[in-house]
């Protein structure tokens, strides 16, 4: 069975018929689609006058039902939105927040402790001892004098 016939079968099932292909419709299809309309002897004008006109109430009912459907769909979605938020609100009380779940580790407390814990050490005035031991003084001739403790 090719794709076209398969689709047609689905559509036929929907209509309540079981014909396999559009080119080979079932008897029910033929009866439904090709049934001749009865023509009154008085002509179309008399038929038009005698046939009941579709009432406005029916159209209004249909329209009202559709508008109700749109509104109901909106209400259903609003209810779902509230339902989901309610589920979140209620069940979140039972959740235990684990520290490893934190999306961003807040460094502020650690930084603050570092700032508070740092005590300024007293510094001596003048050059540090290490620097003073390595200092090289220039001689009068322009050559650098050997530092103290040198082998020269």
């Amino acid at each position, binding site marked *: 069975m090719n794709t076209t016939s398969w689709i047609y079968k*689905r*559509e036929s*099932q*929907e209509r309540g018929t079981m014909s396999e292909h559009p080119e080979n419709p079932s008897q029910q299809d033929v009866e439904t689609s090709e049934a001749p309309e009865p023509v009154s002897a008085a002509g179309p004008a008399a038929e038009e006058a005698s046939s009941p006109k579709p009432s406005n109430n029916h159209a209004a009912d249909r*329209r009202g*039902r*559709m*508008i*109700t*459907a*749109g*509104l*109901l*769909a*909106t209400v*259903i*979605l*609003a209810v*779902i*939105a509230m*339902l*989901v*938020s309610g*589920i*979140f*609100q209620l*069940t*979140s009380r039972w*959740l*235990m*927040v*684990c520290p*490893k*779940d*934190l*999306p*961003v580790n*807040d460094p502020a407390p650690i930084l603050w402790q570092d700032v508070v814990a740092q005590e300024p050490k007293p510094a001596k005035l003048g050059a540090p001892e290490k620097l003073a031991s390595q200092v090289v003084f220039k001689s009068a001739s322009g050559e650098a004098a050997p530092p103290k403790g040198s082998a020269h």
Partner: protein
Amino acid sequence: MVESAWGWLIIAYLFLAGAGSGAFIAAVACELLAPDWSKALARAGSLAAGPLVAVGTACLVLDLEAGFWEPWRQIYLVGNLRSMISWGVIILSFFIPLAFLYAAALNEITVVGKIAKKYVLFIEIVGSLLAVATATYTGVLIAVVNGVPFWNTPLMPVLFLASAMSTGLAVAMIGAAIIDITTVKTLSNFALGHVIFLAVEALVLMLFVFMSLTRSTEAALSAGILISGVLSPYFWGLVVILGIVVPFILSIIEYYEYGEMPKYLVVGADLLVLIGGMSLRALIIFSGAPPQII
């Protein structure tokens, strides 16, 4: 649960605007592709689209507290065309009246609808473009937030568009069942749409989570909250199982059974899709929020 700057109003907007724009696209697709046997679904989708997006936008405006109390300040929303927010405002401003006009035209409501019916094809084409833009914008709105790396990815609009398509189809199918319960059998034809959209949504969601795990530390931590952290029961329970897997299986059965499935299961599958869509948006918002929010 303490609310963050991105709370339930924004989540409601993301959900309602996505579902409304998806319903519009479903209605147009039914009207253009299968006008003979999908009238109820097209009408239901068109009727639901406008109110849903309008209510969602009202939630967005309510969230803008300063703009709500001083509405004249909202004119500044369209002042900067380099901002995606401005484009979102423009898209919504055009889409909402067009969706109402389409509903009036398709259902011949009032004189306006009868006049608009002459231009219904034009409305469908322009409206479809705006509906896709609206659904995409729900994702863009949070994707442009640079401060939350989990949201800041081009996959976000794709994920929201895929979710909007499935939730929109669900809205149209529920509306069609309300209009005429006997049309449930016809709805089996659209179960294939659910199968496709839910599969795409699942694929994009999987990509989104896996890419977040490797993208940056913050995004990985947010993704970790979803799949194994404090929000994982909601993610696996509400989104994956109830919102995707169960409706996916039910839609496959519905398509092959063709009208033999009980009506409450057909409508129930659509309701589950909607619950999953709402939960997905809530989880994405909350997993990207600061830790004290949860």
